[in-house]
């Protein structure tokens, strides 16, 4: 029997759920490769047994009667049994590695054997269930589907052909190895933070050989590619739309000269202003609000489902005109529809679903078409702002650099001039982003410190990140 710490410890897995088996095998084949080797029971130096798995304990007892080798016991409840090392759940790689060391110390031929139990005591501090306890408790109450031990136990009951499903629940609750053990936590347990070990070593299993990897381009599913079409016509159209949303200014304004710029507008003069009022009204009153133009066209805000209907297509020239034309007083009114009106409106919305938009999406587009790359005359641009929440960019009209601007503004407070400088992207994109996100109320005056460390550290991966983005955005292999 090999008992050198240079060789992996030969272990045999007793019965265990397929899920836990997969996880252990994943570990033993990768990060734990030099420490554990899975072998047949006959060759094993130690057993690995999950005491929470139904029948596993009996199986272990039978095995050690034939051949009394030590065991690593995985369980929620503390296990103080001779010739075993208890590894408490949730398992960590560290506790598994430690258990191997402890097992080695009791194997025949080891000169400095120590008390396994003492070692196990130490390990207990490395584990904690508190982070999960709350959820487990609530799941037990309302039977949510996170699995827990009910999963394999119900499988077992099914296998023995229990005709009544309710009986499975009883069996599960009465089984003393089930999660109910978690309910009375040990006070000596350390905070959950200690469970996760921060290490820098990158462990990456290589489940694939090169030949089995790429299935070939026959698997291309064009329907999945949503990146813009490459055709020139489409690119041109796309550019035109961006010009509408962001303007075409190429010169940068600065904190010193922006107020003299010709690129300013007064939001209060446009439909946008009424829409913002309507948004606030609908959010506070939780009612549907209709914004009616004197042409008879209207928008309907539906706060309960976060949707908005517009009788004018958002992508039409008419809508661009309506947004960009200053309104005389009284040309727009806000209306709270009556019940009868609402049922009529609902019918329209259902029939004309194509013109139903994400509510924030409608406001965002309106804000961009109105500002058209200009700054608000009344904007207070002196104090640095921070983006408190990201806009829902997957459901808002896109323009270049928006993701990047959001990421930086979320981490670092600044004004539009700072951002355009820091990122070196066209200033009109920063201004457009600012206008849209500001209208949605996503900015706050800076309070906390910036996340400096995060910004300093990551440059090392920049090349790879850039290649990954190009691949994903370019459509790549799929």
């Amino acid at each position, binding site marked *: 029997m090999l008992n050198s710490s240079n060789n992996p410890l030969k272990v045999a897995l007793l019965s265990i759920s397929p899920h836990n088996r997969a996880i252990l095998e994943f570990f033993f084949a990768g990060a734990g490769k030099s420490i554990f080797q899975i072998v047949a029971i006959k060759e094993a130096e130690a057993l690995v047994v999950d005491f929470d798995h139904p029948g596993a304990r009996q199986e272990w007892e039978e095995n050690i009667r034939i051949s009394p080798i030590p065991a690593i016991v995985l369980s*929620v409840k503390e296990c103080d049994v001779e010739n075993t090392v208890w590894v408490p759940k949730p398992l960590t790689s560290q506790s598994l590695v430690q258990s191997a060391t402890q097992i080695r110390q009791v194997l025949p031929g080891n000169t400095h054997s120590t008390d396994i139990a003492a070692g196990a005591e130490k390990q207990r501090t490395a584990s904690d269930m508190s982070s999960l306890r709350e959820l487990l408790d609530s799941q037990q109450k309302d039977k949510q589907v996170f699995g827990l031990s009910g999963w394999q136990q119900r499988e077992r009951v099914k296998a023995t052909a229990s005709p009544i499903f309710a009986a499975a629940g009883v069996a599960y609750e009465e089984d003393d190895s089930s999660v109910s053990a978690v309910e009375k936590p040990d006070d000596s347990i350390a905070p959950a933070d200690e469970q996760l070990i921060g290490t820098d070593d990158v462990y990456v299993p290589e489940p694939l050989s090169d030949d089995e990897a790429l299935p070939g381009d026959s698997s291309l599913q064009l329907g999945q590619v949503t990146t813009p079409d490459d055709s020139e016509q489409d690119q041109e159209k796309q550019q035109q739309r961006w010009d509408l949303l962001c303007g075409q200014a190429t010169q940068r304004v600065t904190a010193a000269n922006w107020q003299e710029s010709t690129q300013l507008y007064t939001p209060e003069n446009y439909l946008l202003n009424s829409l913002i009022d309507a948004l606030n009204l609908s959010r506070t009153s939780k009612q549907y609000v209709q914004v009616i133009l004197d042409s008879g066209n209207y928008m309907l805000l539906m706060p309960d489902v976060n949707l908005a209907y517009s009788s004018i297509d958002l992508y039409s020239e008419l809508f661009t005109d309506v947004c960009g034309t200053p309104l005389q007083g009284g040309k727009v009114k806000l209306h709270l529809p009556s019940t009868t009106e609402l049922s009529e409106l609902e019918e329209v919305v259902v029939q004309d679903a194509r013109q139903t938009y994400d509510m924030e999406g409608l406001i965002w587009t309106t804000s961009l078409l109105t500002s058209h790359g200009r700054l608000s005359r009344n904007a207070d641009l002196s104090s640095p702002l921070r983006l408190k929440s990201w806009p829902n960019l997957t459901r808002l009209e896109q323009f270049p650099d928006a993701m990047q601007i959001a990421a930086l503004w979320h981490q670092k407070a600044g004004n539009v001039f700072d951002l355009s400088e820091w990122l070196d992207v066209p200033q009109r994109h920063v201004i457009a982003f600012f206008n849209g996100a500001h209208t949605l109320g996503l900015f706050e005056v800076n309070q906390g410190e910036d996340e400096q460390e995060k910004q300093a550290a990551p440059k090392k*991966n920049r090349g790879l990140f850039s290649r990954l983005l190009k691949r994903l955005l370019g459509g*790549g292999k799929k």
Partner: protein
Amino acid sequence: MTTTNKKIIFTGPVGAGKTTAIDAISDISIIRTDEYASDMTKSRKPQTTVAMDYGLIRLGENERVHLYGTPGQERFDFMWDILTKGGIGLILLLDNTRPDPYRDMKFYTNAFRDFIQQEQLVVGVTRLDLQRKPGINDYRSWLKELSIDAPVFEIDARDRGDVTSLVQALLYSLDPGVTT
């Protein structure tokens, strides 16, 4: 020649769309270990992932981005640290039609707390097409309540563009200076 390996982890409750999302951007047909669900989850979906999902994006000869999906039937003895080792970011998918998405968010952000602090989290909310409530704004306030700073997007895991946006947000959050 050395190979650079990076890892992105997808997590979230049963049926949130992890397998589908990885499949949408992986170069290889993903290795999945879906099994027919037990009674407990059958009402929601016929297949569930019992071990890890694995996908891969190859960048040239020597760079690989590995995509891992955790099993949806989260068990208390799951080895979180093993899965996250070497990861650059976590993509949490939440299913808007589940009974209590806030609790799901709390559970997963807590389970991955250390990792989120060291690396980066991005949240994708799926199935808003089936149920519009709660809305993205609710998810934003929940994150604030949990003192977590992370982008939240509505996504459909079947849409490659949506999944790409999550990865984009992740990479830009890690380094806003990345260029394309």
